[in-house]
């Protein structure tokens, strides 16, 4: 059983179903990426996991403690970075972290060490005695992040942890998440698909409150139409001859011409759904024996395409 266990989690806001029967679990050592378009129910799900809002149906347990029946020990295990990284603006960074450490039950030397450690991990030394109100967005974000990790929790819930950071800070935060992910169970939500590759061991895509995909980043990429497709550039041949020949390959589902110039042509062959790995590429190699090949590559599949396909209904409505 995982550190975080979510079963049939459902949330109604009036009649609207914001989250609709979500179930998953996260074990120690896993970093789960939470993807989905705006309004898909990511933040609502995270708020239920952290015990901020009660679920309408279903249950959440953290470290074996039920979040509704036994919230205090469950909350003790969690560090939470809410969306938009709120912090008390009238406090200094140090005062704020001190306050968070005290609510986590840390006192005296242990508290001092915890604050020091969090400050170091989040690079906050230079603003330690500055009021939160005067901080730039990046620093404020990291201050709230520091609050989440101050008690070295077993479970981290991070709602868009890299939102509003500059590229260097994003890089730092991703490294931090990956490093901590080795020993903790982490859930984080993001819009940025490259982050999934950089950080996650597993990703969940949710759309309209339901899970539409759940797997490792490479498994998700396999769902892409592009996955396993072969792109090749042939010199001194016309598109007609090339496509006719490639069409005859039994594993090929479709051939498209990407680019046609007087001296060269670029085509892409898509595999049939159940074609085994590399089978299409070998067949293309055989078919192309006599051609002058300038470039040949096997496509890996793209997450953004998978994401778009799975969460398409929204975009379709927008373009109508």
């Amino acid at each position: 059983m995982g550190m975080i266990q979510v079963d049939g989690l459902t949330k109604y806001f009036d009649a609207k179903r914001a989250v609709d029967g979500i179930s998953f679990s996260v074990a120690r050592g896993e970093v789960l990426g939470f993807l989905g378009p705006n309004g898909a129910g990511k933040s609502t799900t995270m708020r239920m996991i952290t015990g901020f809002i009660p679920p309408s149906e279903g249950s959440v347990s953290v470290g074996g403690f039920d979040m509704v029946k036994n919230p205090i020990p469950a909350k003790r295990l969690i560090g939470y970075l809410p969306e938009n990284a709120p912090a008390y603006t009238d406090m200094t960074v140090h005062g704020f972290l001190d306050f968070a450490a005290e609510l986590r039950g840390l006192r005296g030397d242990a508290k001092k060490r915890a604050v020091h450690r969090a400050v170091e991990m989040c690079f906050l030394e230079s603003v330690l005695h500055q009021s939160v109100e005067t901080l730039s967005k990046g620093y404020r974000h990291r201050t709230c992040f520091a609050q989440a990790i101050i008690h070295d929790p077993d479970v981290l819930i991070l709602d868009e942890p890299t939102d509003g950071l500059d590229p260097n800070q994003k890089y730092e935060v991703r490294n931090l998440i990956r490093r901590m992910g080795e020993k903790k169970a982490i859930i984080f939500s993001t819009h940025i698909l490259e982050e999934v590759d950089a950080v996650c061991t597993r990703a969940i895509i949710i759309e309209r409150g339901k899970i539409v995909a759940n797997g490792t980043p490479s498994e998700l990429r396999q769902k892409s139409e592009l996955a396993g497709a072969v792109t090749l550039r042939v010199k001194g041949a016309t598109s007609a001859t090339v496509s006719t020949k490639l069409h005859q390959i039994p594993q090929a589902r479709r051939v498209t011409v990407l680019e046609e110039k007087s001296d060269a042509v670029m085509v892409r062959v898509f595999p049939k759904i159940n074609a085994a790995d590399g089978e299409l590429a070998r067949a293309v190699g055989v078919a192309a024996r006599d051609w002058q090949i300038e470039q040949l590559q096997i496509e890996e599949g793209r997450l953004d395409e998978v994401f778009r396909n799975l969460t398409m209904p929204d975009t379709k409505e927008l373009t109508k």
Partner: protein
Amino acid sequence: MNAIANIKTIAKRELSAYFTSPLAYVFIVIFLLLNGFFTFMVGGFFERGQASLTESFFTWHPWFYLFLVPAVGMRLWAEERRVGTLELLLTMPITSWQAITGKFLASWLFLALALALTFPLVITVNYLGRPDNGVILCGYIGSWLMAGAYLAVSCITSALTRSQVVSFIIAVVICLFLILAGFTPVIRLLSTWAGAGLVNVVAACSVITHFNNFEKGVLDSRDLIFFLSLIVFSLFATAVILRSHRAG
């Protein structure tokens, strides 16, 4: 005890929040100026020739608090909700009761401080004559309890909305009702058409009726229970409101 440590942590933060903003200083200055002005100029402290603070000093407090206490209480929850720190606070390993109590106690202590700073009046009246200091102490206790009752009402209105202004206005209206229900002209008006029983029930809901006893130096358990139960009830209502917001 864990609960007490949590309440203390929250109260400490809340109290320091008052003093990092100008609000605390503005409040204290206005409160002291009003007290000085009304006691000496309007209340006729010297003209009375009595070594007492009842008529000249305490009698104004229900009216001062009407505006000043909602100003102290308006930010308690409205600000947390507006900034989003409520989410942080309520996902900490504390109960919402501890948060509510801690915040309330901090504001109440702040009001106690403001009230305590009127001590020069006590010295003055002791210098000029021989007042019954027991009555004065009783008046202070009553005044502080009344401030607590107003404050607890302000907690409710603060939890109701994200806007401090709205919270302030609603709190003033409710507190005004708590005053007027026992205000002599209102009672006289009421008794022209209502029976004595109803008049008594309405008057019993008023802070003035109960505060008057404290002013006179009468420490009646009924008055004590009135204020304390008003506070407990209001804090309970605050908890219910906060809970219903989260339930969506």
